[in-house]
């Protein structure tokens, strides 16, 4: 019983981490049609900023708060300078963002060297429920993920900003005719997606420690999750991330980890092949 509970918690917390990482990726992919290969590096940057705050003696949470804003601002600048040129061509966008990611990743590698740097958890210790102990920080991540998910959903579906964003992404020319500044909305969307990646990086760095290939590890899982969930909506990628995250955390409990690792990808690709529209088809929130 206790074991099953711990397993369930592990699975849930890994699922939450994947959802957190995929949120930004999904928003950029769904709303802008760009598969951002630099997203993993935005996660890495968020983690790096948190580490930097910790290394400079600032409280860790200060770094975690700063990370999404800094990464979001960087995303806004990159969108205006570079990403903007790629909208017409999805494959070129992949290559271009890959190049961007390469630059960021190698710069961070140059800064931290080949090390694995650890950042302590801002909320340490464990939560005890009877005889069971679960990590307080992982629990916090689950809570924050739920809050961020709800926040994003409300922002996109209930606010004026979200409405304009969706309008821009669904029909740019009509949106322009209605007086919405579409370049600004694209910039804001990309910045928002990057900021979410930065937040994800900041939150997961105590769990995974900081190393240059941190982002790469999640990137492909993230892409697969977006495709499984369905590009075009906000809910789709989140659902896909839930499925992929849960599967890749749950399967190693019942079979050899190597087989489980590969099986998740194979299942996902087969699923996408036969249901290209993903779990949740359609546009909108």
């Amino acid at each position, binding site marked *: 019983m206790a074991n099953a509970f711990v397993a369930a918690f592990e699975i849930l917390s890994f699922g939450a981490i994947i959802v957190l990482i995929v949120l930004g990726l999904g928003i950029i992919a769904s709303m802008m049609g760009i598969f951002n290969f630099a997203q993993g590096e935005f996660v890495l940057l968020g983690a790096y900023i948190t580490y930097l705050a910790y290394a400079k003696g600032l409280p860790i949470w200060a770094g975690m708060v700063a990370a999404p804003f800094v990464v979001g601002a960087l995303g806004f600048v990159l969108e205006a300078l570079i990403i903007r040129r790629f909208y017409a061509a999805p494959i070129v966008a992949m290559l271009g963002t890959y190049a961007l990611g390469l630059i960021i990743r190698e710069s961070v590698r140059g800064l931290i060297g080949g090390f694995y740097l650890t950042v302590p958890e801002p909320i340490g210790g464990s939560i005890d429920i009877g005889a069971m102990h679960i990590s307080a920080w992982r629990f916090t991540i689950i809570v924050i993920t739920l809050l961020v998910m709800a926040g994003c959903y409300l922002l996109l579906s209930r606010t004026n900003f979200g409405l304009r964003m969706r309008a821009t992404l669904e029909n740019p020319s009509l949106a322009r005719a209605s007086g919405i500044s579409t370049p600004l909305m694209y910039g804001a969307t990309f910045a928002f997606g990057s900021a979410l990646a930065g937040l994800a990086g900041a939150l997961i760095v105590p769990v995974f420690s900081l190393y240059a290939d941190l982002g790469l590890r999640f990137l492909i899982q993230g892409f697969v999750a977006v495709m499984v969930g369905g590009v075009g909506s906000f809910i789709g990628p989140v659902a896909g991330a839930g499925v992929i995250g849960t599967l890749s955390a749950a399967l190693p409990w019942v079979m050899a980890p190597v087989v489980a690792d590969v099986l998740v*990808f194979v299942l996902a690709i087969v699923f996408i092949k036969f249901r290209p529209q993903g779990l949740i088809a359609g546009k909108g929130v």
Partner: protein
Amino acid sequence: MGAVKRAIPAEIGGEADVVMDSGGTARRASARKVLPIVEGVVLVAALLAPLLLQDYLTVFATRVIILALFALSFDLVWGYAGIMSFGQALFFGSAGYGVALLARDLDITNIFLVLPAGTIIGLTFALLLGGFLLLGRHPSSVIFVSLGTLTGSYAADRLARGWYYLGGQNGIPSIAPMSLGTYEFTEGPAFYYLVLGILVVVYLLCRFLVRSQFGLALAGLRENEQRIAFFGYKAQHLKAIIFTIGGGVAGLAGSLYAFHEGFVWPNMVGVVVSTQVVLYVLFGGSGTLIGAVIGAVIVEGVSFWLSDNYRDIWPIILGLLLLLVILFRPLGLISFVLGERERVGSFGARAKESVKENRDAP
């Protein structure tokens, strides 16, 4: 991709084009052929290289030639058929692992057995993956194919890392050298000329292929897939065929690489090598066979030269250069000397100016 072809060639450093296909091609009106000259220069340089280079550089040059062969395979798939294969290393690496296992477990190192075996392994994997990703009732989206190949390569990497039989993280070390009778091919000029000979033969075969009727259909596929389908071609089948051929060439390169380096390791099937080959072709110029070769030589050469002194910042410079090439020279470095007309090539008497569009249209 953008449907509008700019009539005026954009200057470098001028306003960048959004679309990959129209940025600054120096179009030459004259019928002067630049391509054979470039090919001839590269061949002569390659033939003379071992005479001028020191021994350890010949070993390096051999590796570059093998990687150029690998780049050729990606160029066939992306440059000619417009299939973004982000997992080309899957075929390269699995062939490498295949021949390494042949040498380790069955003591087969005969060149006439291992090279065909590697090619067949590459062909088979490409046929399976390509058939699955590309064929079917509904044409697959470009995004699906590129992410599917990427995922395939990543999954293979994870499998190779975790599978004890394949040596896990360490791969398979100290593979016996390739042999011909009692002669053993070890690193050095003999291996270099062997590899160069194979590259030339494969290059000529590819050149024949892309200049044939099949190549014409492929070029059409890259320019406008829908139109080719309306003409009655089975676009998906064409794609699967060229993807398989590309896999075979990658397999051949992979088996040569395994024997040349003497070991195989999980990175060889993974994302790192897959993206490496994309870099070569983008740098050199996709859609021209020689561009892929030149790209591999330049990227590896500069990387070798810089990595002694600037090991840390070299990948950053590479990223910046790649970004600049994508933004301002989408047709690669070869487009500095090669005109659009020659790049597309002429087929029989119907040498027409090509109007490039919709490479990525679903």
